[in-house]
């Protein structure tokens, strides 16, 4: 079952309260998304750790219900 963009956003925001989340539906099919997650709490964390936090927020859906999520993480400028 594909996931809706606002559901992805909600999960990430719930897991990472200070995150600013932008979701793009890449193919317009409700199945291929890109997400950009910007959070102050990422500061000082290596990229792998930042992305792990997002994956944790998605609660095991990554690689399952969410097959195709292109993910970038950053800290605010």
């Amino acid at each position, binding site marked *: 079952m594909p996931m809706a963009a606002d559901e992805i956003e909600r999960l990430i925001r719930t897991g990472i309260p200070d995150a600013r989340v932008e979701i793009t539906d890449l193919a317009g099919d409700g199945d291929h998304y890109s997400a950009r997650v910007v959070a102050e709490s990422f500061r000082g964390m290596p*990229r*792998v750790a930042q*992305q*792990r936090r997002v*994956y944790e927020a998605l609660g*095991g859906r*990554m*690689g399952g219900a969410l097959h*195709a999520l*292109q*993910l*970038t993480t950053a800290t605010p400028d």
Partner: protein
Amino acid sequence: MSEANAKIDEIVQSNDVVLFMKGSALFPQCGFSARAISILDHLGVGFETVDVLQDPEIRQGIKAYSDWPTIPQLYVKGEFVGGSDIMMEMFEAGELQQLLDEKQVAKA
């Protein structure tokens, strides 16, 4: 250590640069794997690939091995570097080249 884990560890430790992916370098079976291959090709580095679609144990096991839920996964000199998004970010920032230089990985 499970059998799959031991097998993965052996692959990771015995190759300087190894990509666990869907499909082969010539015929990637997924857009993310294709992107990872094109980055490695650009860097001109020698690398091995493991097609997880050929081995269900490795396909599941690699996710536990690195505590990372997606494929592809890149390892350099025994260390997990990241998936295709991290590879792309690092490549664009010149950090992937830097990592390979620092670890003295041979050119292809």
